């Protein structure tokens, strides 16, 4: 039975329109280089996939990350931990609508255009229901906006893992609002925004510094994982260790919850990576396949390392490995071959295992839930491996026939990857330190010792996570 589908313009037609509009925009010297396409440019297939992807990424935060982190803390802090993620789902959303979308994806002015967007899109002004050509020519601008919002939500939520069980709820909210504005928005703008310094896409050229150091970061290895992971380390060092750490045993109160959370993260990550194709075609397929392969290989890598070291494979180890692989494949997902993804996963699994098990004990910092060990380290190594394994056959982002990665012949790309990583590290360290200092001086970051002993659930939220005595 033939489907009586509406006729959509061919890709060539869309390109012609886009070119026409683009030239018009340039010729008119408009304040923003953002070009809006007509509604007929929308592909229902692309939009359907993108809306699903956005939902999948939100699921990664709630309940994915909430459960993953929640199971790793002590019973008395389960709700407090979950609330930190949930608060991001609410607060970052409102902040995004008000100002941070504009800062991340708006068009900046002058030399600043490479580093931060402007205020033109505050309150989502000028974010159309028709496509924005420079970002995603076949889906409504608001689909793009809401998809990116889910990334903005989960990134700060990841940081909470480092200061688990000891941060005041109010201080965390203040910290996160400032972090979203001063660390996430600039980083997102540099890598993905129009005119961004690290933007590798040719359709977002604007301003003299645009794409000066094109960084291959398909779904946010630097923007999401390096920034959150490194910021996490800074907060862990600034706040100090939990009472009793490391002498007092603080094992996870429910690896079961963490297991469920990790599986939700794995499935949700298909939205995170494959959705970053911003379309439903073969690039999304590549990213989907790579994501899955990376997770699987990394789970085996971590588990294998554990087997060698402890003679046993733990459930927590296996799921942590999978998450590490998903982190590392994030920047690579739309650039590498499936075999490349297997390699990246395997290497990341072993690398992150060593970071969490060996390096953490050597330096003795209390990164409670290994936000740095998995996301900071995984994101860093993922970005570097992307520079090695990227292949133009999967994604000719620099132009047809132009090599993308080291093994294909583009030896310089690894340098650009390192620059992107270095900038992520720098902005995370400097930004996070300043914000921590300010919030600490204004309202204090850490709960009192008594509150820490009693637990966040009771002291911060007046609740108990589990009440089995009265069941």
């Amino acid at each position, binding site marked *: 039975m033939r489907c009586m589908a509406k006729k959509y313009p061919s890709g060539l037609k869309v390109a012609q329109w886009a070119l026409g509009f683009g030239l018009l925009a340039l010729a008119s010297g408009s304040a923003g280089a953002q070009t809006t396409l007509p509604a007929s440019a929308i592909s229902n297939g692309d939009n359907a996939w993108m809306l699903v992807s956005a939902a999948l990424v939100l699921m990664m935060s709630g309940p994915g990350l909430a459960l993953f982190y929640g199971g790793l803390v002590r019973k008395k802090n389960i709700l407090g931990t979950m609330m930190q993620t949930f608060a991001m789902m609410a607060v970052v959303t409102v902040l995004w609508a008000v100002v941070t979308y504009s800062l991340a994806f708006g068009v900046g002015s002058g030399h600043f255009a490479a580093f931060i967007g402007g205020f033109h899109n505050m309150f989502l002004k000028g974010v159309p229901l028709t496509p924005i050509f420079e970002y995603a020519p076949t889906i409504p601008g608001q689909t793009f906006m809401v998809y990116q919002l889910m990334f903005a939500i989960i990134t700060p939520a990841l940081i909470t893992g480092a200061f688990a069980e000891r941060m005041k709820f109010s201080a965390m909210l203040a910290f996160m609002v400032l972090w979203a504005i001063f660390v996430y928005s600039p980083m997102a703008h540099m890598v993905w925004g129009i005119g961004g310094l690290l933007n590798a896409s040719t359709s977002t050229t604007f301003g003299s510094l645009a794409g000066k150091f094109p960084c291959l970061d398909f779904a946010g290895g630097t923007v999401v994982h390096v920034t959150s992971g490194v910021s996490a380390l800074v907060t862990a060092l600034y706040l100090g260790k939990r009472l009793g750490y*490391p002498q007092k*045993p603080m*094992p*996870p109160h429910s*690896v079961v919850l963490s297991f469920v959370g990790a599986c939700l993260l794995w499935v949700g990550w298909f939205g995170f990576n494959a959705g970053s194709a911003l379309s439903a075609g073969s690039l999304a397929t590549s990213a989907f396949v790579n994501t899955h392969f990376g997770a699987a290989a990394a789970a085996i890598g971590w588990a294998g390392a*554990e087997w060698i070291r*402890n003679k*046993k494979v*733990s459930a*927590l*180890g296996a799921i*942590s490995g999978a998450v590490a692989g998903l982190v590392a494949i994030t920047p690579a997902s739309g650039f590498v071959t499936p075999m490349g993804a297997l390699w990246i996963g395997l290497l990341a699994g072993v690398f992150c*295992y060593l970071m*969490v*098990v*060996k390096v*953490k*004990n050597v330096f003795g910092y209390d990164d409670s839930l*290994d936000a740095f060990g998995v996301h900071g380290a995984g994101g860093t190594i993922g970005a570097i491996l992307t520079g090695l394994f990227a292949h133009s056959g999967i994604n000719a982002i620099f132009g047809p026939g132009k090599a993308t990665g080291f093994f294909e012949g583009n030896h310089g790309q690894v340098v650009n990857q390192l620059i992107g990583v270095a900038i992520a590290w720098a902005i995370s360290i400097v930004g996070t330190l300043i914000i921590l200092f300010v919030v600490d001086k204004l309202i204090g970051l850490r709960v009192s010792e008594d509150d820490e002993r009693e637990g966040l659930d009771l002291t911060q939220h007046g609740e108990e996570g589990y009440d089995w005595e009265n069941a």
Partner: protein
Amino acid sequence: MQKIEAVIQPSKLDAVKEALVEVGILGITIFEARGHGRQKGHTEFYRGREYAVDLLPKVKLEIVVSDEMAEKAIQAIITAARTGRIGDGKIFVSKIDEAIRIRNDERGEIAL
């Protein structure tokens, strides 16, 4: 009247309950406990950190019996709970001053 407290392996609880019923003892209170005598614990691993778990799951049971029944009860518990290995548990016996049935004020051995 004697109170008999026994700390046993959780896996032996069903056998001990049956053995007590067989000698005619119907009242029993069970506590889920943790502890150890000479039994060594085990190590658990979470993300590379070792946790020594030396408080092992145990079951503590309490029964109050007449003086005549005490030895029978003790033997029933021992027979049912013994494996011969370290960790079998212990029994403690103490005197009870009074026993009262809440339903109808009965006191003494008839309340047991």
